[in-house]
Structure formats: structure tokens, C-alpha cells
């Protein structure tokens, strides 16, 4: 019965199971990587976690040589820089998404704009930083001097103006999250069934009445998801921010004053850190992971709900 021919065939028939197991291991490995990242960082942060507890979040001092650590200013800096970036990026991203899904200009022009936005995503973060140092910093310095002279009494425009400031970092961040924002919003707009638009036109709506009254409201959850995911990206963006924001832990209301973010803190201090400072940086990294994971989970969830809903319309 067991001729040599058949045994090789049997080996061949059994191999796929091995391959399946190999693929399963790879898949399980991917899932484990995320867990491993979190556990490893939490473990390395443990000495700092047990020493500072939750006060780490509300404490403003970061003095390595006195072993006093707190990340409150950096959390505020992370949130405010991403929020200001979103303030600039949202109208632009939405405008581009609408521009790309409408036929205002001929297709080649739209394809060029699309290519440009995709290129924005491809440019390395550190090149944005370099460009920001030589282009955005002088511009912000000029605008800042002009503004603080006239509106210096308003806390957010308080002087003195620095080139390395919250506004500089936010402007460059806005540019960097634009591709994410545009791509996901555009998908949401493209998923709106054409029948809805036709219906609006048939009722006598102008193009923009159709866009604002029917298409955008239908695509709104997708646009919200795009905003959330882009916000997550902005919070984790490191190099350009570290090069432009000034990395200061001194709290200030002014957008023209230096600030700092969690990611920037890690980039600046990890290379030369030792002892408890490493543990504290790990703690800061853990906070960053928790924030960005939370933001991304919410974004993915909104995206999923949206997809289900637009499927219903079809």
C-alpha cells in the first residue's frame, strides 16, 4: 500500500497544515506585538509609576538632577498643539476633500492636487522640521511681533514672541495631518450614494445646497472619524514638533511662547537619560500610548459605524 509515490503525496498533503500553522503564528505574533509593546513599556515605567503614582500627570516639574518628574505641561502641550493644528487643517482638509469629489476643475488638475496631498504624506517628518526652522519660524516671529504689539493684553497673544513656539509647531503639524484628514474624508464623501445628490438637485438645490444640506450630513460620521484619526496622528508626531516647539515645560497661555509635547520630550531626553529619568520617560511614553490608542480606537469605531450606516442607504 505505502508505495514511495503515495508517501511523497502524503507529505505534500500534510505540508499545508504546517504552512497554516506558520501563518497562524505570524498572525498571533502581530497581535502579541501590540501587547508586548504595552507590557514592556509599562514594566520599564514601573519604578516611576510606583514612586509618583497619578501625581505624575498633574505635576509640572521636570528636573532630572533632583529626580522630580511630572508631565502636566507636556500633556497640555500635546493636546493644545494638536487642537490648534486641527483648527487649521480641518477647513483645508474638508475643502480639498470636497474639491476632489466635485468637478469644479478638470480631472488632471484634481489629480495633481491629489498627488500633491499624497506627496505631503511621503515627506519625512525631519524634513518638515528643517523646512519649519528656516521658513515657518521667521514667518511666525514676524506675525507674532506684530500681533503681540497690538493685542498683547489678550493672554493667548501675550509676548514676548519666540520663533520656536506652539503656533509654529501647530502650523507644521496641520500640514502633516492634512493627507490623513483628506484621504478619509474623501472616502466618506465618495461613499455617499449619487441618488441622494440627484435627489437634491431634482428638488432645485444649487450645488452647494446639495453639498451642505445632503452630502456632508450623510458623510459627517466619516469626516468625524477622519478628524479623530488625524488628531491621533498629530498627538504622536515627534520630530518636526521636537524641532519647532521649543521644548519648554514652563506653562504659558501664549501661542507665541515655547511649549512641549510628550513625544518631543521622549525624543529630546531618551538618548542621554539614566536611572529614574528613563523610568519616568517610559511612564510618559505609556501615557502617550494610552492616549493615542484611545483616540485611534474611537476613530476606528466611528469609521465602522459609518460604514454600516452608509451601507444601509444603498
Amino acid at each position, binding site marked *: 500500500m505505502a508505495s514511495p509515490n503515495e508517501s511523497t503525496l502524503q507529505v505534500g498533503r500534510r505540508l*499545508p497544515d504546517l504552512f497554516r500553522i506558520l501563518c497562524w503564528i505570524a498572525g498571533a505574533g502581530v497581535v502579541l506585538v501590540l501587547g508586548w509593546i504595552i507590557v514592556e513599556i509599562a514594566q520599564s515605567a514601573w519604578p516611576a509609576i510606583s514612586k509618583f503614582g497619578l501625581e505624575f500627570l498633574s505635576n509640572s516639574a521636570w528636573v532630572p538632577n533632583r529626580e522630580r518628574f511630572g508631565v502636566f505641561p507636556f500633556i497640555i502641550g500635546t493636546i493644545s498643539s494638536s487642537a490648534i493644528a486641527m483648527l487649521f487643517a480641518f477647513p483645508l482638509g474638508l475643502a480639498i476633500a470636497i474639491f476632489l469629489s466635485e468637478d469644479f476643475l478638470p480631472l488632471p488638475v484634481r489629480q495633481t*492636487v491629489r498627488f500633491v496631498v499624497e506627496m505631503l504624506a511621503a515627506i519625512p517628518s525631519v524634513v518638515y522640521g528643517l523646512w519649519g526652522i528656516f521658513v515657518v519660524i521667521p514667518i511666525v516671529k514676524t506675525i507674532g511681533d506684530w500681533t503681540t504689539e497690538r493685542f498683547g493684553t489678550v493672554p493667548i497673544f501675550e509676548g514676548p514672541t519666540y520663533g520656536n513656539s506652539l503656533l509654529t509647531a501647530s502650523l507644521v503639524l496641520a500640514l502633516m495631518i492634512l493627507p490623513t484628514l483628506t484621504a478619509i474624508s474623501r472616502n466618506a464623501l465618495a461613499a455617499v450614494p449619487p441618488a441622494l445628490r440627484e435627489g437634491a438637485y431634482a428638488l432645485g438645490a444649487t450645488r452647494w445646497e446639495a453639498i451642505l444640506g445632503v452630502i456632508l450630513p450623510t458623510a459627517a460620521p466619516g469626516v468625524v472619524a477622519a478628524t479623530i484619526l488625524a488628531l491621533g496622528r498629530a498627538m504622536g508626531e515627534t520630530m518636526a514638533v521636537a524641532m519647532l516647539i521649543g521644548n519648554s515645560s514652563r506653562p504659558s497661555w501664549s501661542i507665541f511662547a515655547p511649549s512641549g509635547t510628550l513625544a518631543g520630550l521622549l525624543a529630546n531626553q531618551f538618548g542621554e537619560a539614566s536611572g529614574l529619568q528613563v523610568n519616568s520617560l517610559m511612564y510618559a511614553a505609556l501615557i502617550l500610548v494610552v492616549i493615542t490608542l484611545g483616540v485611534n480606537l474611537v476613530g476606528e469605531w466611528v469609521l465602522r459605524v459609518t460604514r454600516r450606516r452608509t451601507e444601509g442607504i444603498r
Partner: protein
Amino acid sequence: MGAACDTTTHGGYPMNSGTAEPAIGDFLGGIHSKGTGFRSLINRILTVLCVGLSLLTLVPLFSIIFLVVKNGWPLLSWQTFVELPPAAGMVGGGFANAVVGTLVMVGLGLAISAPVGILAAIYINEYAPNARLSHAVRLVAKLLTGIPSIICGVFAFAVIVSTTGTFSAYAGAVALSVLMLPTILLTAEQALLSVQSSFREASYGLGATKFQTITRIVLPDALPAIMTGVMLAVARAAGETAPLIFTALFSQFWAQSLNEPTASLSVLIFNFSTVPFPHQIAMAWTASLVLVAFVTVANVLAQWVFSKKY
């Protein structure tokens, strides 16, 4: 045309023309007298605004490209690719070790992430599309794309730098592999998904096993699209600084092994852009030019490979 419209819109109901005519007239009149001018004005303003804002994004990109080329061009020469970086305040030199360092670390990272990513994609698309593990893999891959790149560096620091006690190319490669993994996995899944199921059915019909179907039919057909993902991941990893800055660190010299601090283009840009020496800053621009050129070529190549297939 008008008659046809009438019958369809009114669904064949007899219309009393005496009441219908004035109603339509009022409707049209209402638009003309109250709104049309204003409404179409709003319409036009919004269009101009939208197109204007969209074209505005061209400005920063052109500014970046223009400055990178203008400032990077003067130092771009053969010397740049064969000599070591100049010490602080010195002139001359190049960034040969950084180019090699970037290539080695991206290559090593790819060697880790490509097999894992592609095999996992095969599992979630070919073997068990609806298994709980597959859903978990998809979610985790999406979350990994959202994790800040510096966290990959922190992870590699904790796992490798703290245990071996030295900054190394290995640590940099591990950080980059975590960064590349989700891109490769998600694009490979899309690539496998786009293979027509009739191919698989024909293969089974001819008596092939699952393994044979995957390796001989599905993978060859999906290969160009998988390569697209790999190239996008390489382009992204080559430009990343944050995962390398405290894993591979930097070195002014040639690395003798993979277990010592290693230079990379992106970290060189970061280090040189913050020093007060004009020559170093010029070199940072040149390195940016090389990096942007590499990333652009990789992206265009990826698109090209993809479009060739579809």
C-alpha cells in the same frame, strides 16, 4: 420633454391644469424674485473658496521641494556618498556611513516585518477570514498604524538597548520593523483580497491543495500589489527619525558591526539642523534632498508596479 415629465412626476393622476399652472408659476417666480441671484452668488463664493483653499496646499509643498533642491544641490557630489561626516565646525566630508546605515537598518527591518506581515495576511485572508484571531489581527494592525513612531523606538530601547547595554543597528532595525509591519500586512491583505476567487476555485478543481493554491496561484497573482505595500513601507521607514534617534543613535564613523551606534540619514538631518555651523546645515539640506528623492522614487515606483497590474 415637458409632457413626459408631467406623466412621470404625477404618476398618471389627472391634473387639474387650472390649479397646477399657477402653482408651478409661483414656485418658479418665488425662486426668481427672492432667491436665485443670492443663492447662486453664495454658490459661486463657496466654489471659489473651496478651490482656493485646495490650491493653497500646493504652496507649502512647492516651498519644501524648492528649498530642499535649492539648498541641497550645492553639496551634492560623489564625495558626499563616499566620505564620512565632518566633525563639528569642520567643512568637507559626506554622509556615506549614514546612507549605508539607513539601507542596512531598513533592510534588516524589512527582513523581520515582511515575512511576518505577509504570512499573517495569508492567514487572515486565505485560511480564516472570519476567525476571531483574524479580526484581532486586522484591528491590531490598524491600531499599530496609529501608534506614534517614537513608541516603536521606546519599545526597541526597552527590549534591546537596555538588555544589551548599547545603542545598535539591531535596535534600530527592530524599531523600524514594528513601524513597517502594519503597512505591509494591510496592503498584503488588500492584495490577496483582490485575487479573483475563480482562480482559487479553478486551482482546487484541478486537485491542488490549499498550500499549492496559495503558493502557486494566489501569491504570484497578488505579488505586484504586495510589492507596492513593501515599497511604501520602505519609503516610510527610510524617512523616519523618531524610532532611530535613541536606538541606533548616530555615529561619525563607519560601524564595525551591527552591535554599535549606527548613523542614518534622518538622524543626521536632525543632528545637523540644530547646530550653529553653516556647512553642517547645508549638509542637512543635502541629506534631505537625497532622502526626499529616495522616498519619492520609492512611492512612484510603488504606484507604477501597482498600476501595471491593475
